[in-house]
């Protein structure tokens, strides 16, 4: 069937290891990625929360921003792309950021780190090319250097610290959102599971050996994209292109915590980012809709696209991510609902296969986080 021919997929450097481990490879964000290993999504998810999970996230975009002039000018230029405080971020610290568009929507979400004489940025795989073009265009005073010779591994779960400390002595001293360079290994204490853990950038040539040594540590198992998705959903974290996109503002997305005081009305560097008019207005007046957690009352998962209704039948929103939460042992979802229906405890109905089933607006995360602060 010629019309179903897949575009050429990019290969991860660790693909031979994934295949050796029995990884089921599927297309994701233009890459061939392991969606699960023989244990399956449920066991991989629970293993990560009980011990330690190793994820290959090398598809994500790693980028270095170097100043052509002063570091302060570089940080100001980066701030001009995001409603986020970049100048205030201390060296060796990581922060969550969002590129916004002129309409106040989100072009991508990212992590950035201040490393003294430059910034280190990690962006979503599917947005990587657009993000790089956006930074090149928006930051003429910066050299935008895509990092193409490094793998990115995430080690997550209560066993992550001991396992990584055995290979990279010193990482145990890091706190949540700290970043440190250990020789040619870059370590952040962060992740996308709600668990304590690390994201580790390793030179491509060393990546397979490094991954094998991690997998040889007690309790470390390889984890695929399937469990990565259920873990982040339980942690209440957004998946770009689903829970946030170019139409959702950071305020609607309930990401106001990512907008520091300095960039808000009355702050030292208020506004001055794309979409500031809408975002500052929504901060002051509240958004029309809000991203909320949702707990279906029954056992039927409410997945992306499920329409939500008030008890009187009025349409109030839509699910953007949903499935079964293995650790909470129940279906969980997140989605956008009109603000009048967004307070915790509100009873709504979600339409699944033509039937309207009860669902309750719930606080997130669904599963308590275990970050080492």
């Amino acid at each position, binding site marked *: 069937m010629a019309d179903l021919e897949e575009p050429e997929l990019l290969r991860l450097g660790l693909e031979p290891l994934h295949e050796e481990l029995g990884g089921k490879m599927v297309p994701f964000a233009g890459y061939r990625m392991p969606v*699960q290993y023989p244990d*399956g*999504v*449920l*066991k991989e998810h629970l293993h990560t929360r009980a011990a330690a999970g190793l994820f290959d996230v090398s598809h994500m975009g790693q980028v270095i921003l170097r100043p052509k002039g002063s570091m302060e000018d570089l940080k100001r230029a980066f701030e001009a792309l995001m409603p986020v405080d970049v100048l205030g971020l201390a060296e060796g610290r990581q922060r969550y950021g969002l590129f916004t568009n002129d309409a106040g929507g989100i072009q991508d979400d990212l992590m950035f780190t201040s490393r003294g004489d430059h910034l280190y940025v990690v962006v979503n795989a599917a947005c990587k090319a657009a993000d790089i073009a956006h930074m090149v265009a928006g930051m003429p005073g910066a050299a935008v250097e895509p990092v193409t010779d490094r793998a990115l591994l995430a080690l997550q779960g209560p066993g992550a610290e001991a396992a990584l400390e055995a290979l990279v002595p010193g990482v145990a001293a890091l706190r949540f959102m700290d970043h440190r360079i250990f020789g040619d290994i870059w370590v952040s204490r962060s992740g996308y599971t709600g668990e304590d853990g690390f994201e580790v950038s390793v030179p491509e040539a060393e990546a397979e050996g490094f991954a094998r040594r991690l997998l040889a540590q007690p309790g470390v198992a390889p984890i695929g994209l*399937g469990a990565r998705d*259920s873990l982040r959903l339980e942690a209440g974290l957004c998946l770009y292109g689903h829970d946030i996109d170019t139409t959702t503002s950071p305020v609607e997305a309930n990401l106001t915590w990512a907008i520091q005081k300095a960039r808000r009305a009355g702050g030292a560097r208020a506004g001055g980012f794309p979409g500031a008019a809408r975002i500052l207005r929504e901060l002051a007046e509240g958004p029309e809709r809000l991203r909320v957690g949702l707990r279906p009352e029954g*056992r*039927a*998962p409410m*997945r992306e696209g499920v329409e939500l209704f008030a008890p009187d039948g009025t349409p109030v929103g839509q699910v953007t991510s949903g*499935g*079964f939460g*293995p650790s909470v042992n129940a*279906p969980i979802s997140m989605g956008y609902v009109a603000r009048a229906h967004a307070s915790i405890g509100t009873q709504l109905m979600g339409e699944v*296969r033509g039937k309207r089933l009860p669902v309750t607006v719930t606080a997130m995360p669904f599963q308590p986080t275990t970050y080492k602060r």
Partner: protein
Amino acid sequence: MKYTKEHEWLRVEGDLVVVGITEHAATQLGDVVFVELPETETMVTEGDEVCVIESVKAASDILAPVDGEIVAVNTKLVDNPGLVNEDPTGAAWFFKMRVDDLSVLDDFMDEDEYQELIG
């Protein structure tokens, strides 16, 4: 045991047809987390969606393989959907149907033909 192209197995038990999904289907679905069963004493037509299976990955249906009446459902699957992965061709049967004429099963694949289909 007979098989459908939709990866259901059909087993005759007295004058009833027992229906479940094959091991191949269970593996493809991944961990099953939710099962919705039909009402008993329901008349169904071949191709009707009679059960819903949700795995960690996606939702899918079981279609009625033939015309008949649903006379029993396996309520154990509602409380323990994981049974579908543990024992798809045994304990995890989905429903039992009464059909007019058991010879309708002759048209379905036998073991060898099914193995060839999934091979």
